[in-house]
């Protein structure tokens, strides 16, 4: 597990997990909030497979030697940049159905701005930097999703 700058008041915890089956963001967030009752605020983001689009299924594929270590390094860099009490990243791999959660990021901090910024930074890097490949099934046909220029632009915001 990556090390992290500790805020003076509390133990810092980083939890990073690749989930091979569906997870419950509400339950994850409740446990995270319980573990960080001393934090003044928690900012979170949930990404999910769009429903009502014509996407029938989505598959996320990682490469074990790189994917989890890379996301752990990302978590460590978020923690080095802001003073956090905790950071949680849960990312799905495998086959997903419309409406299912893909990713949960939650950052707990003494002050809200650090929590918002750390969650935002982490999501932008997960979109463009994590070793994950995504394909979508539309009208029975699988297609690999190409990186979007907007995602590269979002990443550039962080210098």
């Amino acid at each position, binding site marked *: 597990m990556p090390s992290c700058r500790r805020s003076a008041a509390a133990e810092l915890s980083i939890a990073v997990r690749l989930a091979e089956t569906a997870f419950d963001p509400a339950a994850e967030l409740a446990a995270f909030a319980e573990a960080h009752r001393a934090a003044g605020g928690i900012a979170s983001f949930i*990404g999910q497979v769009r429903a009502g689009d014509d996407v029938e299924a989505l598959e996320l594929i990682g490469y074990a030697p*790189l994917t989890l270590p890379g996301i752990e390094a990302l978590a460590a860099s978020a923690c080095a940049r802001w003073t956090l009490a905790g950071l949680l990243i849960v990312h799905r791999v495998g086959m997903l159905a419309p409406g299912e959660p893909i990713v949960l990021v939650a950052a707990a901090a003494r002050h809200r701005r650090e929590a918002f910024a750390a969650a935002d930074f982490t*999501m932008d890097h*997960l979109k463009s930097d994590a070793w*994950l*490949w*995504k394909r979508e099934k539309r009208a029975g046909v699988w297609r690999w999703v*190409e990186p979007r220029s907007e995602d590269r632009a979002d990443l550039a915001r962080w210098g």
Partner: protein
Amino acid sequence: MARLVWLGKLADLAGAAETDLDGTLDWDGLLARLPAPLAAEVASDRVRVALNGVVLADKAQLRASAGDEVAFLPPVSGG
């Protein structure tokens, strides 16, 4: 025998998620042994290469032999 691992759309081009190749491979030798469309994609600047879990700064310096795992990493599309 070195194991080649194809990620993302490269697996479609290779027709498999993994390919085993005999002998010692350098970059040019590897490209010569791949089907032309796959070799062209692998040679493009968009594709990075990892040897035994470490991403190479310069894939042209690749040297792989028996027991090595070489992964081919096209642009990611996560989140």
